[in-house]
């Protein structure tokens, strides 16, 4: 049959596709081991070294090339991502919970929320800056205006994740709790929330990673103090050195670590749910 030929051909194509996706990262990793401080961000590799990694951590003697000004920016970005994660997830869970009942104007509210992931960041950033500068008259900061735009961007993702989870949710357990006279808030805390917790974790992960790497919204809305993507953008205009590539490799490893934590939490919560189900069976 024809498909006997098509499937291997597509398999080869997918291998090339993966190469295309990973090519730049492979090159970036190779060049991060360039000789320092004289080796530039290009081939050939003069001599393999870990100079640029040591430079990122400030372990090399001062040289012509200034260390990356990323320390404070990194902390700001992490704090901002945590703030965004908490607020977006809370808003996402609340709104998705409301959407379980049909109400008037639900289509309008749905599109209002989803609009947040549709509008280009450069526009929300610009609009928020204009508003802060000319109408409200406040200074722009990463923890005020930029934070507002970050939540307006990540909240729709949290909302959609929670909506998908709650759509498949079996509400008979809640009804059981209600019929036993448990008030709605306690029901949510003790019954609903533990059951939707894996979804909450995914929503949190989405919000955190999107905020951590968010650049166009922050560019205008964050004012004087830079977040990490802004600091990286700052190195664009001046000369590039392999230290930025070493930094890229390190942040990728950090993401891996973060995702492993997420995976472990997820596995634990699944295992706990199974254990609880088993206890119920025994009882």
């Amino acid at each position, binding site marked *: 049959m024809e*498909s006997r030929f*098509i499937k291997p051909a597509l398999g080869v*194509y*997918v291998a090339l*596709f*993966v190469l295309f*996706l990973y*090519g730049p*990262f492979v*090159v*970036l990793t190779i060049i991060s081991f360039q000789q320092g401080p004289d080796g530039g961000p*290009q*081939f050939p590799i003069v001599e393999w070294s870990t100079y640029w990694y040591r430079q990122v951590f400030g372990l090399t003697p001062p040289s012509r090339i200034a260390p990356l000004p990323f320390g404070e920016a990194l902390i700001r970005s992490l704090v901002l991502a945590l703030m965004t994660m908490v607020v977006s997830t809370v*808003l996402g869970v*609340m*709104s998705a*919970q*409301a959407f379980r*009942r049909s*109400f008037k104007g639900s289509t309008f*509210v749905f599109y*209002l*929320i989803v*609009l*947040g*992931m*549709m*509008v*280009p960041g*450069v*526009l929300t950033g*610009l*609009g928020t800056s*204009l*508003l802060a500068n*000319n*109408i409200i008259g406040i200074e722009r900061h990463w923890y005020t205006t930029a934070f*507002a735009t970050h*939540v*307006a961007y990540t*909240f729709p993702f949290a*909302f959609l994740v929670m909506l998908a989870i709650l759509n498949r949710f079996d509400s008979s357990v809640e009804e059981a709790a209600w019929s036993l006279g448990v008030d709605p808030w306690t029901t949510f805390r003790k019954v609903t929330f533990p059951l939707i917790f894996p979804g909450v974790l995914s929503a949190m992960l989405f919000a955190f*990673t999107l905020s951590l790497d968010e*650049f*166009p919204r922050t*560019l205008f809305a964050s004012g004087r103090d830079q977040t990490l*993507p802004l600091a*990286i*953008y700052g190195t*664009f205009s001046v000369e*590039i050195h392999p230290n*930025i*590539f070493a*930094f*890229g490799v390190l*942040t*990728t490893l950090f*993401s*891996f670590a973060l*995702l492993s934590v997420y995976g472990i939490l997820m596995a634990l919560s699944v295992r706990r749910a199974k254990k609880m189900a088993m206890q119920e069976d025994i009882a």
Partner: protein
Amino acid sequence: MSSTVTIQDRQSKVTRWLLVPGIVWMSLFLVVPIAMIVYVSFWTQTTFNISSDPTLASWKQFFSSDTYTGSLWTTIRIWLIVLATTFIVGYPTALFVGLFVKSKTLSTVLLVVCVIPFWTSFLIRVLAWRPMLGKEGAINIVLLKLGIIQQPIEVLLFTELSVIIGMTQIYCVFMVGPIAFMLSRIDRNIIEAARDLGAGFGRIFWKIIFPLSLPGVVVGAIFVSVMVLGEFATSGALSGRKVNLLGNIIVTQVGSLKWAMASVVGVVLTIVMGVVIAGLLRIVDLKREL
């Protein structure tokens, strides 16, 4: 009877209070800012400031300058090209992952493999294309070693081509995901039945597989369009400031405190965006398909 009414009353009250914070946040920090851009585009620009006296000056300036109208056409051209390249590059991968791979584990693994590059910072991913495409970059070195070319290709970096290559790599995964999802939902019995009736793969593809994957293509196209139309970092970093998209113009205008002009460009971008998304949603009725 009266007790059920109060329960319903209370529940719709709960629904309202659950919705209020989200609606308020999105109105204040999304709808109002966009309205603000429209409003400021009619303000008067002085050298370093803006005042709220209404004027059409910035709009006239936009349409009388080749730099500005040119950036509009560049944006539309790059958007169409990247839409096409992400589709061409992504569709076969989605076909393999969504339809040809029988094992659920393998298709999940392949999708995870597609997502892993996103764990590197967006800006560093863009930057990584420089040592890839440069005159002494990886691609030229490999091609020279293989003897395919005698001279290094110089048009690879700091041209429109490098912007297109970079954007294709960064955004093609957003095509693969939705298409693979739609393909995986196709009922295999339909394909089996068509094959039993003697249809070849080409016919099955064009009559069954492709039409059923169309909603995925549209969702992917919306993702890619939203991101490419608002782009400025990739074009800035890989074109050597030769390719100016609407986003680049906004950034330079804000940089020189020309807020009114930045707003005009912002409104133009919003309109382009709205037309594109409305057009895409017309092709396929998403609510019915999903």
